[in-house]
């Protein structure tokens, strides 16, 4: 298993990283919070932390700490546009149910 990005998502991440001017890639994680148990964390990564699992997809490096990986292994990160809104979307095969808005989830 691995973490992957769609081509669209990778394009946006690279664009944002270039604009930001620093950072080695993207950090994905989960933390225990939110109305349905777990919530996604999506951040710029300035450095890899020891023990991180690292993936590369369409030229973007993705870092995941081992504790988080069990919840999101196999996830595909997509970039979507809904009306005027746009942003990243986690297609996570581990999710059993999510809260109405999808910001937090359960496995």
């Amino acid at each position: 298993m691995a973490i992957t990005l769609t081509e669209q998502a990778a394009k946006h991440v690279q664009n944002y990283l270039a604009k930001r001017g620093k950072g080695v890639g993207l950090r994905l994680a989960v933390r225990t919070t939110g109305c349905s148990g777990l919530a996604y964390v999506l951040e710029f990564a300035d450095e890899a932390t020891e023990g991180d699992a690292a993936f590369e997809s369409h030229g973007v490096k993705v870092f995941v700490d081992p504790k988080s990986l069990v919840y999101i292994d196999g996830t595909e990160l997509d970039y979507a546009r809904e009306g005027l809104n746009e942003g990243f979307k986690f297609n996570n095969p581990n999710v059993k149910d999510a809260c109405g808005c999808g910001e937090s989830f359960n496995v």
Partner: protein
Amino acid sequence: MALLQIAEPGMSAAPHQHRLAVGIDLGTTNSLVATVRSGMSIVLNDETGRPLLPSIVRYDAHGHTEVGYAAQAHQCVDPHNTIVSVKRFMGRGLKDIPHANEMPYQFIDAPGMVQIKTCAGIITPVEISAEILKTLRSRAEKALGGELVGVVITVPAYFDDAQRQATKDAARLAGLNVLRLLNEPTAAAVAYGLDNASEGIYAVYDLGGGTFDISILRLQKGVFEVLATNGDSALGGDDFDRRIFCWVLEQATLTPLNANDTRLLMAKAREVKEELTNHPETRFTAMLSTGEMVDLQITSKILSEITQSLVQKTLAPTRKALRDAGLSVEEIKGVVMVGGATRMPHIQRAVAEFFQQEPLTNLDPDKVVALGAAIQANVLAGNKSSEEMLLLDVIPLSLGIETMGGLVEKVIPRNATIPTARGQDFTTYKDGQTAMSFHVVQGERELVADCRSLARFELRGIPPMVAGAARIRLTFQVDADGLLSVSAREQISGVEAAITVKPSYGLTDDQITSMLSASQSFASHDMQARALAEQRVEAQSILAAVDAALAADSALLTAPELSAITASQRALQDTLAGTDHRAIKNAIEALNRATENFAARRMDASIKQALTGQKIADLST
């Protein structure tokens, strides 16, 4: 599924706690809204992908408003009720507005701010600006998928307290929480400074639709310090349009025009001006309401000639700002161009010549202010550690107090960095004087009559003393928005008086409240609409139920009973065509009453049917 943005390391928000913040450039001609998305400042477009919202509001007789392009489309046909460039009227009295008699509006010189009579009633500039802000707010909330925590709104550096207060009032009326008012050139510097991260002293030359600002800024280790600001709050791209308009009148020897034709030619003048940015020549063609045809050839050379004095008018304040900052032209490392009017090639040439270098134009001059405001909003909303950016701003005009003989004693000099607090001691001038009246003014002139009056207040209860014995400490405090509060304290007795400056052109809380309650009348309108829809649905379902019951069991009814029910049904049908939800409700109740017996009889009949042929013993189990 919610759409997520990339956060800075360690700054991820908990679910449902994203702090959505936007920057708004509330411009004279166009307004924009921008936000920081995944660390990048971007302008939010409308549904059809257009970034700009023309700052135009149209009122119709039913109290509805159109904002932006929709209003712009009616600019020529309905000039009296279509308000353009409202920013020029913010916090201004009629006497402050140049060319007011040439504008197609019916101004009312109300005490404080000017008002405009439209077919929807008398409207204040604050309400008009609020309509623009509401439109941007709804665009932003749609684009970001949630409510805004706060906004940063930009204002020209030269706006005085009254104009700043009016802008804040408009935001409040639009339901926005203002995190800060930010000077436009400072916002532009934020956009450029962070992106390019080059240190040095910069000039920001901002020629917008209706205002000109020149600011001298120092960028150092990511810190912006405004060294000096100057400008002209009544000079902008509109004036270039007006020059073209006047040139056309002169060339075509036109007689005085009606409001529609004036508006038509002004709109044409703007088109021609924009055309001349990329083309050396173009034609000015328009058909007047009299059937007269205007068709003239205009070149960029002509434009340059007829607007030369306007360009010069921007260079005088530029010189003054440099002098205020104690700098020479050689010390300016770069010149940032802001505002759509700076696209005009002859302006870029004039600026390049003045500063002896090519101005920076690598960010869209229309968007740069909004982009910077968004970055600032993002910091203030707490999405980024504020250590990364400290923003020093200055007071554009000196703040002072009236002293004997109508003179101004300056307490806070212009270009003082804010937030700030300064104190000054005053004393009584008569034996036994127990009260003192203070008159707070803003401006550079020496006489009170030449400055803008901001507020008056009194300090009472000073113990009687000989003249000159009382020590009254006057403290001026200016917050981060550039808004002022003044307090006076008699040091010996401790009596105190204070005032938060509601500038004479600002709105009082009562006025704001009444405007808010007026805006709430739309809420009750919405509520009525919902009640109507609910009653209609209810009526449809009960009508269907009665129809079904009649089809099945009309045999249970006598002829008069049946006709009473069908009459009630028809009555309900009739009310459905109307819009009175109470009438529908009453008709529903009437039908309920008419069918009460019928329903009871149907129940009896079905029970009887169910019981037929069954033994008591079977039923008791």
